[in-house]
């Protein structure tokens, strides 16, 4: 195997490991949020440093491969995609940390009714699935799977879009839930960002494998 191929394989493994870590961070933040588990939330906050460390290591490795091997064609696209995927994964890691911090700072668990009317739980579940699907798509070089996340993101967008009105209606009769509603709204906004970032990642997988640029384009055309 050529040295460049070995380096790219090692880099791919690093990215997959980071992906697994970010997935775990997002899932643990969800469990902490669901169970109001402050210890687990603190664990997520602590592990965020590892996500940052992975990001820096992957950036440095990409820089070295560019400088030493002058990659072209699919290798070049792979590296360009990895740089962007890396950055998106790190931001998703930040979001997991942010959600965990809400759980640490919150005084009481979120009310069942608020969770239900906002549809935040299925939204969160879908966001985690999207991230898992893109990881599989990256590992297996499967652009069909990568494309499937575009559709899933529509659900996240619809929950986000409806959230203002839903909470307005809820607060009209339950004004005492205002503080919790504001926190939930903030988490919904962050999950919507996770959807967008995962979509960006899927676009990068397709760019690397098919040399097609889907950014700012209709994904279903």
């Amino acid at each position, binding site marked *: 195997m*050529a040295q*460049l*191929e070995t380096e790219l394989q090692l880099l791919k493994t690093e990215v997959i490991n980071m992906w697994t870590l970010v997935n775990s961070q997002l899932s643990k933040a969800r469990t902490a949020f669901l169970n109001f588990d402050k210890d687990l939330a603190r664990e997520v906050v602590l592990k965020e440093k590892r996500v940052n460390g992975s990001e820096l290591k992957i950036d440095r490795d990409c820089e070295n491969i560019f400088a030493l091997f*002058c*990659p*072209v*064609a*699919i*290798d*070049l*696209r792979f590296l360009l995609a990895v740089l962007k995927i890396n950055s998106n994964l790190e931001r998703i890691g930040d979001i997991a940390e942010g959600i965990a911090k809400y759980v640490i700072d919150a005084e009481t668990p979120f009310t069942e009714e608020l969770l239900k009317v906002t549809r935040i739980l299925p939204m969160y579940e879908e966001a985690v699935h999207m991230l898992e699907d893109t990881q599989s798509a990256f590992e297996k070089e499967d652009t069909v799977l990568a494309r499937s996340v575009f559709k899933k993101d529509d659900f996240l967008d619809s929950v986000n879009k409806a959230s203002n009105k839903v909470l307005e209606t809820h607060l009209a009769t339950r004004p005492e839930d205002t503080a919790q509603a504001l926190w939930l709204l903030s988490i919904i906004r962050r999950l919507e960002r996770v959807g967008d970032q995962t979509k960006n990642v899927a676009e990068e997988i397709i760019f690397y494998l098919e*040399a097609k640029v889907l950014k700012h384009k209709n994904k279903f055309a």
Partner: protein
Amino acid sequence: MESTIIKSRNFNASFGSNHVVKNVNIDIPRNHIIAVMGPSGCGKTTYLRCINRMHELIPGATSSGEMDLNGEDVYQMHPIFVRLKIGMVFQRPNPFPNLSIYDNVIAGYKLNGIKLPKAERDRIVEQSLTKVALWKEVKDSLNKKGSFLSGGQQQRLCIARTVAMEPEVILFDEPTSALDPISTSTVEELFHELKANYTLIIVTHNMQQAARVSDKTAFFFLGELVEYDETKIMFTNPKDNRTQNYITGRFS
């Protein structure tokens, strides 16, 4: 719209029974730099030498098909005329060792028996050396032997010798493979300047050089022209797997 200067149609070349260039079809646009790359033995140098009929100088070498310069079949022209119009620069700098820098530049005229007045010769020497960015370096030592120059300067002198004949196309066969990185960089910069007046076709093993200097790249493999496209496309999104495998170093 870009006009085609060299056009090959169903072009084949052989050494005896060894068929080394197979059915090549290509249009080379005027005032462009074309890189020709491929593994050793793929036929790229043979194809290059067919363009100005150098191939036929080798015993047993044959060719067939169409090779046009400005729409005229070069195989219907006098070979000397073809080589005046399509000059060539080789891998190793090869100035005539016993000739001065001045005489090296106008060697093409002397060897072809073209007599020119001294003032005209002076003008050609200065203009040609200026075109290859060598004039300032050698203007005070034109009577010194060409072989006293550094490798990079010698290669530029050889390019000046070619340019002096006012060709339309210049063929380069791995022109920097014997040069150090600084001389290589000087010659590469020169390519960009020469492009304004000439069409350059460069056979190179150095893929980064192909990427740096050329407008279009042709990839040859086992005698076939596998892919020919804008260099940017060839190095970011080649269409043929053989091209991709070659440029990413995955050929076994």
